[in-house]
């Protein structure tokens, strides 16, 4: 069952505070967090979180199309180690 709309999106308060502080300071910090359950809010766009997957903190640069998803969705707990072949990375 979906979460009731009147409650608003869930975000751990401590994460929200850290994110606000980071946004105001304008520094390029990585906010390391265990809060995989927190929803990505519009004010998180542009920030970098390190989201714990049980083993390590995966760096996540929040973009607009991630808003509404949970942080945990971008930090998989079961890693499939595939092969490289012709896969390419674009440095942004």
């Amino acid at each position: 069952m979906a979460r009731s709309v009147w409650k608003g999106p869930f975000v751990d308060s401590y994460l929200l505070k850290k994110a606000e502080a980071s946004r105001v300071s304008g520094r390029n910090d990585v906010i390391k967090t265990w809060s995989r359950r927190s929803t990505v809010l519009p004010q998180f766009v542009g920030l970098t979180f390190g989201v714990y997957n049980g083993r390590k903190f995966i760096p996540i640069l929040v973009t607009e199309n991630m808003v509404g998803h949970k942080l945990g969705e971008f930090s998989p707990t079961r890693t499939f180690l595939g092969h490289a072949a012709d896969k390419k990375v674009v440095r942004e």
Partner: protein
Amino acid sequence: MKKSSDKSLNADQVCVGVVTGPHGLQGAVKIKSFTADPKDVAAYGPVTNKSGEQRFDIHVIRANKKGLVAELSGVNDRNAAEAVQGTELYVSRDKLPELDEDEFYYSDLIGLPVEHINGEEIGVVSLVDNYGAGEVMEVELKDGGTEMYLMSRDVVPEIDLENRRIVVNPPTEVYADKGHADEETEEEE
């Protein structure tokens, strides 16, 4: 995409797939493709086995959930198809298309030494992957453990493939502390 010891990618060769078994009686084989688009296993011309002794032209018949069904030149019956089971298929690194300035193949980055922006060598790239929020690079640190870096210009200001080095500018880390959260929650209640 991790570099495995067995399928290590030297500078000249890139493993694009592996023959997983025979398919049918006419000599077709099943191929597990390692390319971004599975059908591209045949896009870079003839492939060879690891030692380079065998050479095959691939004709992809169809793709399904389990991989590709394809015909290999010189493999004309089921016995021959069984004989090539487990063969890794390699192409020359030169066959891969040229990339733009800020594009890099995963296979080129894996294994490169990583330097801190202050010049200190910190480790070697062990993995590059994308979990849906941008590409990340895992570095195996010299003093044990691993560290992950986002593949952005701020964090990775320099990638020099010719001189085989990557320079990273690690961002400051701050912790959103769980302990504080519990206290705050209790206060609110």
